[in-house]
Protein backbone atom coordinates (compact mmCIF):
# COMPACT_ATOMS: atom_id res chain seq x y z
CA UNK A 1 0.00 0.00 0.00
CA UNK A 2 1.10 3.54 -0.66
CA UNK A 3 1.55 6.04 2.15
CA UNK A 4 2.17 9.78 2.11
CA UNK A 5 3.62 11.60 5.11
CA UNK A 6 3.69 15.32 5.78
CA UNK A 7 5.66 15.83 8.98
CA UNK A 8 4.93 19.56 9.41
CA UNK A 9 1.39 20.10 10.75
CA UNK A 10 1.83 23.88 10.67
CA UNK A 11 4.24 26.35 9.08
CA UNK A 12 4.41 30.11 8.97
CA UNK A 13 6.31 32.56 6.80
CA UNK A 14 6.60 36.29 6.35
CA UNK A 15 5.23 37.84 3.20
CA UNK A 16 7.79 37.88 0.34
CA UNK A 17 9.95 35.19 1.96
CA UNK A 18 10.45 31.59 0.85
CA UNK A 19 9.07 28.51 2.56
CA UNK A 20 9.47 24.79 1.92
CA UNK A 21 6.87 22.18 2.78
CA UNK A 22 8.03 18.57 3.18
CA UNK A 23 6.48 15.37 1.90
CA UNK A 24 7.70 11.80 1.83
CA UNK A 25 5.98 8.78 0.37
CA UNK A 26 6.37 5.07 0.27
CA UNK A 27 5.60 2.88 -2.72
CA UNK A 28 6.88 -0.11 -4.62
CA UNK A 29 5.56 1.31 -7.88
CA UNK A 30 7.91 2.76 -10.47
CA UNK A 31 5.37 4.72 -12.50
CA UNK A 32 3.41 7.31 -10.58
CA UNK A 33 2.45 10.94 -10.20
CA UNK A 34 2.84 13.30 -7.27
CA UNK A 35 0.73 16.36 -6.60
CA UNK A 36 0.53 19.32 -4.30
CA UNK A 37 -2.97 20.61 -3.69
CA UNK A 38 -3.95 23.81 -1.92
CA UNK A 39 -7.12 24.19 0.18
CA UNK A 40 -7.68 27.83 1.24
CA UNK A 41 -9.94 28.43 4.25
CA UNK A 42 -13.54 27.63 3.27
CA UNK A 43 -12.62 27.51 -0.39
CA UNK A 44 -12.20 24.92 -3.12
CA UNK A 45 -9.25 22.52 -3.29
CA UNK A 46 -7.08 23.36 -6.29
CA UNK A 47 -4.01 21.83 -7.88
CA UNK A 48 -0.76 23.70 -7.27
CA UNK A 49 1.75 21.55 -9.12
CA UNK A 50 2.23 18.03 -10.51
CA UNK A 51 5.33 15.87 -10.98
CA UNK A 52 5.65 12.76 -13.14
CA UNK A 53 7.96 10.17 -11.57
CA UNK A 54 9.70 9.30 -14.82
CA UNK A 55 10.75 12.93 -15.36
CA UNK A 56 13.99 13.87 -13.64
CA UNK A 57 13.42 17.60 -14.07
CA UNK A 58 11.67 19.24 -11.16
CA UNK A 59 8.31 20.79 -11.99
CA UNK A 60 7.86 24.54 -11.63
CA UNK A 61 4.76 26.70 -11.81
CA UNK A 62 5.46 30.41 -11.37
CA UNK A 63 6.39 30.90 -7.69
CA UNK A 64 5.92 27.22 -6.89
CA UNK A 65 8.55 24.56 -7.49
CA UNK A 66 9.24 21.07 -6.25
CA UNK A 67 12.34 19.19 -5.19
CA UNK A 68 11.67 15.63 -6.30
CA UNK A 69 14.14 13.06 -4.98
CA UNK A 70 12.92 9.72 -6.34
CA UNK A 71 15.49 7.53 -4.58
CA UNK A 72 14.74 9.17 -1.25
CA UNK A 73 10.98 9.18 -2.00
CA UNK A 74 10.82 12.85 -1.14
CA UNK A 75 8.69 15.53 -2.78
CA UNK A 76 8.95 18.98 -1.17
CA UNK A 77 7.19 22.15 -2.29
CA UNK A 78 8.99 25.49 -2.34
CA UNK A 79 6.96 28.67 -2.39
CA UNK A 80 8.97 31.75 -3.33
CA UNK A 81 7.94 35.35 -2.69
CA UNK A 82 5.11 34.20 -0.40
CA UNK A 83 1.85 36.12 -0.64
CA UNK A 84 -1.03 36.50 1.79
CA UNK A 85 -3.19 34.52 -0.62
CA UNK A 86 -0.91 31.52 -0.19
CA UNK A 87 -2.36 31.00 3.29
CA UNK A 88 -4.03 27.60 3.06
CA UNK A 89 -3.77 23.96 3.94
CA UNK A 90 -1.44 22.16 1.54
CA UNK A 91 -1.79 18.49 0.76
CA UNK A 92 0.76 16.23 -0.87
CA UNK A 93 -0.85 13.42 -2.87
CA UNK A 94 0.28 10.31 -4.70
CA UNK A 95 -1.31 8.52 -7.63
CA UNK A 96 -0.05 5.18 -8.95
CA UNK A 97 -1.36 2.79 -11.52
CA UNK A 98 -1.30 -0.08 -9.06
CA UNK A 99 -2.37 -3.55 -10.07
CA UNK A 100 -3.04 -2.66 -13.69
CA UNK A 101 -6.21 -0.74 -12.87
CA UNK A 102 -6.32 2.87 -13.89
CA UNK A 103 -8.86 4.35 -11.55
CA UNK A 104 -6.52 7.16 -10.52
CA UNK A 105 -7.00 6.95 -6.79
CA UNK A 106 -5.17 9.63 -4.86
CA UNK A 107 -3.51 8.96 -1.51
CA UNK A 108 -3.25 12.15 0.52
CA UNK A 109 -0.87 13.22 3.25
CA UNK A 110 -2.09 14.68 6.52
CA UNK A 111 -1.75 18.25 5.30
CA UNK A 112 0.32 21.27 6.36
CA UNK A 113 -1.36 24.48 7.43
CA UNK A 114 0.64 27.39 6.01
CA UNK A 115 0.10 30.90 7.33
CA UNK A 116 1.65 33.87 5.54
CA UNK A 117 2.09 36.89 7.81
CA UNK A 118 2.17 40.49 6.54
Amino acid sequence: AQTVTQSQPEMSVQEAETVTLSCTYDTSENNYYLFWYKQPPSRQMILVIRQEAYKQQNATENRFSVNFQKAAKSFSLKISDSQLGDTAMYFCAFNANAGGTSYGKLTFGQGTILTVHP
Partner: protein
Amino acid sequence: EADIYQTPRYLVIGTGKKITLECSQTMGHDKMYWYQQDPGMELHLIHYSYGVNSTEKGDLSSESTVSRIRTEHFPLTLESARPSHTSQYLCASSDRGFQETQYFGPGTRLLVL
Protein backbone atom coordinates in the same frame (compact mmCIF):
# COMPACT_ATOMS: atom_id res chain seq x y z
CA GLU B 1 -11.85 27.14 -11.30
CA ALA B 2 -13.04 23.70 -12.38
CA ASP B 3 -16.63 23.11 -13.52
CA ILE B 4 -17.68 20.80 -10.72
CA TYR B 5 -20.57 21.67 -8.43
CA GLN B 6 -21.90 20.41 -5.14
CA THR B 7 -25.19 21.12 -3.42
CA PRO B 8 -26.04 21.88 -0.76
CA ARG B 9 -22.95 23.68 0.51
CA TYR B 10 -24.12 23.41 4.10
CA LEU B 11 -26.66 21.05 5.65
CA VAL B 12 -27.89 20.70 9.22
CA ILE B 13 -30.17 17.74 9.74
CA GLY B 14 -31.56 15.57 12.48
CA THR B 15 -30.61 11.98 13.25
CA GLY B 16 -32.40 9.37 11.18
CA LYS B 17 -33.13 11.55 8.17
CA LYS B 18 -32.30 10.45 4.64
CA ILE B 19 -30.07 12.85 2.74
CA THR B 20 -28.61 13.08 -0.74
CA LEU B 21 -25.55 15.15 -1.53
CA GLU B 22 -25.43 16.23 -5.14
CA CYS B 23 -22.34 16.43 -7.33
CA SER B 24 -22.22 17.32 -10.99
CA GLN B 25 -19.47 18.17 -13.46
CA THR B 26 -19.62 19.64 -16.94
CA MET B 27 -16.18 18.52 -18.11
CA GLY B 28 -17.27 15.12 -19.45
CA HIS B 29 -14.89 13.32 -17.10
CA ASP B 30 -15.21 9.56 -16.82
CA LYS B 31 -14.00 9.19 -13.26
CA MET B 32 -15.62 10.70 -10.20
CA TYR B 33 -14.82 10.44 -6.50
CA TRP B 34 -16.24 11.18 -3.07
CA TYR B 35 -13.93 12.07 -0.19
CA GLN B 36 -14.70 12.61 3.48
CA GLN B 37 -12.67 15.24 5.34
CA ASP B 38 -12.95 16.22 8.99
CA PRO B 39 -11.95 19.87 9.68
CA GLY B 40 -8.22 20.42 9.32
CA MET B 41 -7.61 16.76 8.57
CA GLU B 42 -6.63 14.65 5.59
CA LEU B 43 -8.99 13.41 2.90
CA HIS B 44 -10.27 9.85 2.81
CA LEU B 45 -11.70 8.27 -0.33
CA ILE B 46 -15.12 6.72 0.35
CA HIS B 47 -16.48 6.03 -3.17
CA TYR B 48 -15.37 6.24 -6.78
CA SER B 49 -16.68 5.54 -10.23
CA TYR B 50 -14.99 4.71 -13.54
CA GLY B 51 -18.03 5.70 -15.58
CA VAL B 52 -21.76 5.20 -15.99
CA ASN B 53 -23.10 2.23 -13.98
CA SER B 54 -19.71 1.75 -12.30
CA THR B 55 -19.28 2.37 -8.57
CA GLU B 56 -16.71 1.11 -6.07
CA LYS B 57 -16.09 1.56 -2.38
CA GLY B 58 -13.01 3.51 -1.39
CA ASP B 59 -10.39 3.07 1.28
CA LEU B 60 -12.52 4.37 4.17
CA SER B 61 -15.60 2.39 5.05
CA SER B 62 -18.74 4.46 4.77
CA GLU B 63 -22.43 3.81 5.35
CA SER B 64 -23.25 6.00 2.39
CA THR B 65 -24.13 4.78 -1.10
CA VAL B 66 -23.59 6.29 -4.54
CA SER B 67 -24.99 5.93 -8.03
CA ARG B 68 -23.75 6.86 -11.50
CA ILE B 69 -26.60 6.88 -13.98
CA ARG B 70 -25.28 9.81 -16.01
CA THR B 71 -21.68 10.76 -16.72
CA GLU B 72 -22.03 14.20 -15.23
CA HIS B 73 -23.86 13.25 -12.04
CA PHE B 74 -22.59 11.33 -8.98
CA PRO B 75 -24.90 11.71 -5.97
CA LEU B 76 -24.13 10.35 -2.50
CA THR B 77 -26.94 9.15 -0.22
CA LEU B 78 -27.16 8.48 3.50
CA GLU B 79 -30.29 6.46 4.28
CA SER B 80 -30.27 7.32 7.99
CA ALA B 81 -27.99 10.14 9.08
CA ARG B 82 -26.17 9.89 12.41
CA PRO B 83 -23.98 12.36 14.34
CA SER B 84 -20.93 10.27 13.34
CA HIS B 85 -21.62 11.29 9.73
CA THR B 86 -20.89 14.92 10.57
CA SER B 87 -18.02 15.92 8.28
CA GLN B 88 -17.18 17.66 5.03
CA TYR B 89 -17.79 15.72 1.83
CA LEU B 90 -15.75 16.60 -1.25
CA CYS B 91 -16.57 15.47 -4.77
CA ALA B 92 -13.90 15.30 -7.48
CA SER B 93 -13.57 14.22 -11.09
CA SER B 94 -10.76 13.37 -13.49
CA ASP B 95 -10.34 12.42 -17.12
CA ARG B 96 -9.39 8.99 -18.47
CA GLY B 97 -6.04 7.60 -17.31
CA PHE B 98 -4.48 7.46 -13.84
CA GLN B 99 -2.24 10.46 -14.29
CA GLU B 100 -4.99 12.99 -14.88
CA THR B 101 -5.47 15.72 -12.34
CA GLN B 102 -8.47 15.50 -10.05
CA TYR B 103 -10.67 18.59 -9.93
CA PHE B 104 -12.56 19.22 -6.72
CA GLY B 105 -15.95 20.69 -5.97
CA PRO B 106 -16.47 23.25 -3.18
CA GLY B 107 -17.63 20.60 -0.72
CA THR B 108 -20.71 20.01 1.44
CA ARG B 109 -20.42 20.59 5.17
CA LEU B 110 -22.81 18.22 6.94
CA LEU B 111 -23.87 18.52 10.57
CA VAL B 112 -26.09 15.80 11.97
CA LEU B 113 -27.70 16.66 15.29
